[in-house]
């Protein structure tokens, strides 16, 4: 059974009566008339690291953007902490979005601000804290992602892994306890990717954060994921859900086995009797 750590800074243990951190119900999404995913339903529990995986073009990043309210689904509902982000409007939607920290694929740091100023940015915008208090909070966040030494750097001087870790720190600034990460390991060397995986795990363990991670990096998936869902662009549906190791070893679906065993189409056809 999944061990769910306490929510960030909460004195009380996580209540089993609280709704799931994210609940997707009968989702249909796509662009224009092109449907990417239909009738998708799944929950993300508190303190869980849920990975959305699938091949290129299967709609992983689009699903994430639907969850964080950037895109509007064609049908269905997405509940954040039990409240629909699809039906929310204006301030209500902004309030829900503040519960979600987002790290984009490139880190999306503002190029004209230092790393510290980037992490401080949400605090500047949404709180009445003094500069000293905001700086202290931002510096502590940067140390949590092992980026304390880079607080005076400009984003242009950072490597890909550093940009992503700084992006995570910024995503956490407003105390969001649900973090969505888009391709955190993509384009990183194995050591940097492993360090980032360790950062994600320690943030979950120390702070009890909930993660939704979009990735197709197998090593990362096995390192961090409690559970995974796999999207298929042909059937436009979720074709697998469960622990990555179980999906790899026990799935009856050849598409799932092909993905986890990293087999080419040619090898799959050859393997057929």
């Amino acid at each position, binding site marked *: 059974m999944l061990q769910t750590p*306490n*929510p*960030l*800074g*909460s*004195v*009380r243990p996580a209540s089993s009566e609280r709704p799931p951190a994210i609940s997707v119900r009968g989702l249909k999404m796509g662009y224009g008339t092109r449907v990417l995913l239909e009738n998708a339903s799944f929950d993300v529990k508190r303190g869980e690291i849920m990975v959305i995986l699938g091949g290129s073009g299967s709609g992983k990043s689009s699903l994430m953007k639907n969850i964080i309210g950037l895109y509007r689904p064609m049908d269905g509902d997405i509940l954040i902490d039990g409240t629909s982000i699809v039906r929310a409007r204006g301030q209500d939607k902004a309030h829900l979005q503040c519960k979600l920290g987002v790290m984009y694929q490139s880190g999306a740091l503002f*190029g*004209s601000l*230092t790393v*510290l100023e980037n992490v401080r940015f*949400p*605090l500047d915008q*949404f*709180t*009445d*804290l*003094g500069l000293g*208090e905001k*700086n*202290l*909070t931002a*510096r*502590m*966040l940067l*140390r949590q992602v092992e980026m*304390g030494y880079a*607080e*005076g750097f400009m*984003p*242009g001087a950072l490597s890909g892994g550093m940009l992503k870790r700084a992006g995570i720190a910024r995503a*956490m*600034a*407003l*105390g969001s*306890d649900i973090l969505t990460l888009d391709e955190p390991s993509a384009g990183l060397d194995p050591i940097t990717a492993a360090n980032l995986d360790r950062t994600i795990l320690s943030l979950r363990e*120390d*702070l009890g954060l909930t993660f939704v991670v979009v990735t197709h990096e197998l090593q990362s998936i096995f390192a961090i994921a409690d559970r995974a869902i796999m999207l298929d662009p042909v059937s436009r549906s979720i074709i697998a859900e469960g622990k990555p190791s179980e999906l790899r070893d026990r799935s009856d679906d050849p598409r799932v086995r092909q993905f986890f065993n990293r087999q080419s189409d040619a090898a799959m056809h050859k393997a057929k009797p």
Partner: protein
Amino acid sequence: MATATTSGLRTDDSVKVVLEGRITAYTAAPIWKDALDTLARNPDRPIVVDASRLEYADDVGIALLFDLLRRDRPPQAKVEMRDLAANLAALVEAFDPKDFAQPPPGRPQIGILEHIGRVAAQEVAYVKTIAAFLGQCAGALWYAIRHRGLVRWGEVVSVATEAGANAVPIVLLIGFLMGVIIAFEIGLVAQQFGAVIFVVNGVGVAMLRELGALMTAIVFAGRTGAAFAAQIGTQKVNEEVNAIQTFGLDPVHFLVLPRLIAAVLVMPLLTVLADVIGIFGGALVMATFNVSFVLFYNQLLGAVDTGDFVLGIVKAAVFGLAIAGIGCQRGLATGEGATAVGLSATSAVVKSIVWIVVLDGIFTVLTS
């Protein structure tokens, strides 16, 4: 929802600060301020922070707790945290106050003299760079003259269409307004001296020798010079320029030359349009000063000659060459990231306008 409060209740010698409820990014500001005020008002008394009723703290709340504990106070006036939940205590203790002893590094500040010196050195370096780049361009042009089949004429036509044909409406508008403004301003003054007819001379000479080319060049710099810098800058950021080089191609020949040729061809054409529409605008205004179109035409023929027209056209070609050269050079000098593309485009416009004015001054000295 519970609210968080602090209070300075004295118990014996110590001062008690009570933290209760939820401390989040949105609620922490007044609590933090109150707590620090309490510490500041009691510099020599021990402080007891009662966290028994604290329900929740996010990262800002944890920073608040850490900030209270890390304060440098006398031994008899330490801050003591009581009944803090174990998970919160672990989070706070994970940080070392020594790591935060130094203030965060600010942006490097430089004095005004150093700034002036740096800018001057950059400009000197830029002149050298642009001279070397113009040398490369001249080499590429000479090569193109000898091997016309190797010039990417399709690209030249495409750039000329975008930079020339698509710029006609804005050039016509600016040229027309320039003619109208000059005629009106000079006309009002000349009217006082009964010399309205000589306004035609002013409009003709100004448009043909100076303003037709100058205003067209400024529009061209803002529209096309910036576009050249942004296009090539984006290609540089996307490593397309590296790809061109690794194919054994010269980026100057491949990217810059078509733009230079297109600019030199379309700038004079645009200037002719600006000249004609500017003089037409002047004629319209002069009609309000009782100078008929026929009279305007006859006076204009006596006031300007072919040399004035040719001078404007030659200027336009040189301005076009300078704008395209600067735009392409700034594009090729683009650094890393999307911000660098914006800086290149801005720099291309500013440097183009400065060089247009400088070149215009040189023309004026040489031809007067």
